[in-house]
């Protein structure tokens, strides 16, 4: 039998549902792969082998009883970013402050995955509380990029993206506040989708920046991402910002796009996200992708979004402000780490000592930045003004979408940089999200699809496709058409060009789990 870990989610689901292979075998194959390669990749913070096998068994039993699968992805394994709560399974958000916390409840996304019969293999590594673009801010050590272990896998969802690129899981879940799904997707040669804000429930997603956070699907193909999108998307009464409307028809759009015709589709190239400050290999791959879209029949035009230039600045005021408030609850009183409770310190002192010990430098930096931006006397100049810039960016998008159906840009200005290269230069690190941030600020849908390797370093480049609110299907259509054309031109999926990873022999899954 072919290596099960190399198949797409759609292919695996087909074989499982046809009972050519059992869900347990599929789960075991992936657990074995994790055991073999995760010591080198460190994509997982926790592997739940027992839970995964039990879920897989339940799918097999359903099928054996002649009942239909719970969803088109029933039995397919998935890697869940460690920012979603999982009842009884550790949830750390990559932070020491939540080390050992076992949530007493499931996130809505977790619940929907379970109800769909998806097999959750474990929890993936991330920048602490999703703050970062390299996964180096994890309290549990960095994740390595399967394309080159010296390089970052992007962040904050580096664990989820690396798990896909290392064939540890065919599906993953990420969250995207400023690019944390798309940028890791770009630098690992995988597909990452940030749905429309409000399209996927945030209930049980540990908040970084509430008005920007959005969970979404990660996969190795556009269709797989669409299939997962339909499982996790849709209205949730537990999230007040959840949109009460049907999930956009993303699977149908992906299938339509795969037919390879984009005639009638108007594609806008954002002039502000092109040119100076971008790695040459990124730009040439991006421009080639735009040409490919044109070749598929799309009408390509240049579109200016003048306020995008202020997006990064607005983001680094809004997100820290919200995080300074969201992370206040980590105070050692009700759950998580507690430091200094020796009878001599007051509650306030214990809070202060715990937060000092439990948070890493980037989290502290952003909490203080946000505390500053919200404080009396600075609010109007910083937070207030940033919220106005947000309005202007949304207006830029609205004006652009009067002319075009989707917008495109590189996903991130560079390919995967070296681990350690930017840790001491926050501003340089922040620039990784330059292109992805506008869609978060406006709440639009956006995704990254692999668009070749940069000529100078041979590392993956991502094409970002953006669509208006609740028009997620538009970008899936374009992405699927592009994916088919690129694979045909390159003679196969890009992801299969990932170098083979050093496998660790003879180590059990338990030892790999943190």
């Amino acid at each position: 039998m072919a290596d099960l870990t190399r198949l797409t989610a759609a292919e695996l689901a087909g074989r499982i549902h046809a009972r050519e292979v059992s869900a347990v075998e599929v789960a075991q194959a992936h657990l074995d792969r994790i055991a073999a390669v995760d010591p080198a990749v460190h994509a997982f913070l926790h592997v739940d082998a027992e839970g995964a096998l039990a879920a897989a068994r339940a799918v097999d039993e359903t099928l054996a009883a002649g009942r239909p699968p719970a969803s088109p992805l029933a039995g397919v394994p998935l890697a869940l970013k460690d920012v979603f709560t999982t009842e009884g399974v550790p949830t750390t958000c990559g932070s020491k402050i939540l080390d050992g916390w076992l949530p007493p409840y499931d996130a809505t996304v977790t619940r929907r995955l379970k109800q769909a019969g998806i097999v959750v293999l474990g929890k993936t590594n991330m920048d602490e509380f999703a703050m970062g673009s390299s996964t180096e801010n994890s309290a549990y050590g960095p994740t390595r990029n399967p394309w080159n272990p010296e390089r970052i896998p992007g962040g904050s969802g580096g664990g989820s993206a690396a798990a896909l690129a290392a064939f540890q899981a065919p599906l993953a879940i990420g969250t995207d506040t400023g690019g944390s799904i798309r940028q890791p997707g770009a630098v690992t040669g995988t597909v990452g989708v940030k749905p429309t804000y409000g399209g996927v429930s945030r209930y049980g997603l540990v908040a970084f920046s509430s008005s920007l956070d959005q969970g979404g699907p990660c996969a190795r193909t556009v269709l797989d991402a669409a299939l997962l999108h339909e499982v996790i998307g849709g209205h949730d009464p537990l999230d007040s910002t959840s949109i009460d409307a049907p999930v956009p028809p993303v699977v149908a759009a992906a299938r339509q796009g795969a037919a390879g015709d984009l005639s009638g589709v108007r594609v806008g190239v954002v002039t502000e996200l092109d040119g100076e400050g971008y790695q040459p290999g990124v730009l040439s791959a991006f421009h080639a992708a735009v040409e490919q879209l044109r070749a598929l029949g799309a009408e390509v035009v240049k579109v200016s979004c003048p306020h995008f230039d202020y997006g990064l600045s607005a983001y680094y005021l809004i997100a820290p402000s919200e995080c300074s408030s969201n992370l206040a609850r980590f105070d050692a009183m009700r759950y998580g780490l507690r430091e200094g409770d020796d009878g001599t310190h007051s509650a306030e002192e214990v809070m202060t000592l715990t937060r000092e010990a439990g948070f890493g430098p980037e989290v502290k930096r952003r909490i203080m930045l946000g505390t500053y931006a919200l404080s009396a006397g600075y609010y109007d100049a910083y937070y207030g003004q940033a919220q106005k810039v947000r309005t202007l960016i949304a207006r830029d998008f609205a004006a652009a979408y009067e002319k075009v159906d989707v917008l495109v840009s590189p996903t991130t200005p560079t390919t995967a940089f070296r681990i350690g290269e930017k840790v001491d230069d926050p501003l340089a690190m922040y620039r990784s999200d330059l292109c992805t941030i506008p869609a978060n600020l406006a709440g639009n849908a956006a995704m990254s699809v692999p668009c070749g390797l940069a000529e100078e370093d041979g590392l993956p480049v991502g094409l970002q496709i953006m669509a208006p609110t609740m028009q997620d299907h538009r970008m899936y259509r374009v992405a699927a058409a592009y994916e088919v054309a690129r694979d045909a031109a390159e003679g196969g999926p890009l992801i299969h060009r990932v170098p083979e990873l050093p496998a660790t022999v003879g180590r059990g899954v338990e030892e790999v789990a943190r």
Partner: protein
Amino acid sequence: MTATAELMDFADVVERFDPVLGLEVHVELSTATKMFCGCANAFGAEPNTQVCPTCLGLPGSLPVVNGTAVESAIRIGLALNCEIAQWCRFARKNYFYPDMPKNFQTSQYDEPIAVNGHLDVVLEDGAVFRVGIERAHMEEDTGKSLHVGGATGRIRGAEHSLLDYNRAGVPLIEIVTKPIVGAGERAPEVARAYVTALRDLLRALRVSDVRMDQGSLRCDANVSLMPTGSTEFGTRTETKNVNSLRSVERAVRYEMCRQAAVLAAGEKIVQETRHFDEATGSTSPGRRKETAEDYRYFPEPDLVPIAPSREWVEQLRTTLPELPWERRKRAQEQWGLSDAELRDLVNAGALELVAETVEAGAAPGEARSWWVSYLAQQANTRGVELADLPITPEQVARVVTLVAEGTLTNKLARQVVDGVLDGEGGPDEVVEKRGLKVVSDDSALLAAVDEALAANPDVAEKIRGGKVAAAGAIVGAVMKATKGQADAKRVRELILERCAQ
């Protein structure tokens, strides 16, 4: 603490200074669930049994607004003659405190749901004073801390604290007055009358239990003084922990006298939070903060704005009860009360209680008599407000009915009420448990009568001889034997019947 911690005589205070009051009342709504989650909103459950990820502030949890709480907020705003916002939001008020699970309170800040109203309050002598309402806004309550160790069981000196989050997230409406100026020497009375009127209004709206003793109605009193004739407000203090109507009046009066003494000595008032001590009737400073609080308010991103449609607001307006003074006039006419009787009823804070008792089936005279005499005495002895007595109007009405039916005598009825007040259950339960039913079974009474006649043959002889007045002694003996549970009139009839045979 300064050396001039004495008080100025109240008469001197009002001669030299004009008081300015600001009253902030927090009302816990009596919704079935909390403000932002589906946990039960009920007082007195086992600790941490009415909690969920949201009200415990667990990572990942999110709030969803209770629609009924919004409705109550709008109705309160309308009843206070406020404008209802066309569009408003919740904000986060950020500060760390262990009883607050998220370390921010979800509250309304610069966009309250109701603004700019007033409430007319009637003073003891019938004068009407209009209190301006600045705003009424929605927010959530905190959990409760229990301080363990140390001498007093209070926060000072405690070794550690224990937290119960059942109350965390309970819906609150905060009602803030505009500065109350011009009340002069009547300022303490106005403060009390305002809280009383507000409580009556909220009770009539049926949006809250308004139990000051249980904290479902809480008042913070801001007091400052300015020299008579001045228009520039002085530095204010905010007195918390004022948990009875009487305390509102006392706290305001105390602060006026204290501040006057400080100012007269040429010293400055410290802007601070003070705590009212029920036992001494005085206020003392709370913890001094080293820096001014900076709450870093910003719009709550987890909740979407509230934009009540004008149709909804108008529909809610139709659900408003009568205004308290209209209500009074109607009660006076319906129940045939003199002005003095009405005033007693209002001053006792009994009007709505009587009305509810009447509504529950009691005769107006009986209902009024219970509340203004026996229950008022009980409230006084127990040191609580009438409305805070642990007996409901329905229970009082039931007692009235039991008397009317002849199941209870008035004396027994008072024992039943005592039982209810002591937490023994509802009236019927107390009757059952204490065995307080009137003995109306003739055969049982006859046995007691015969026994008493037999035990007092000389008295029996007198009655048989036509000295009917002598029956009193036998009635007494029978009442004693039945522990007062017999209907004396019936006993007398039976004695006479027996002796006539």
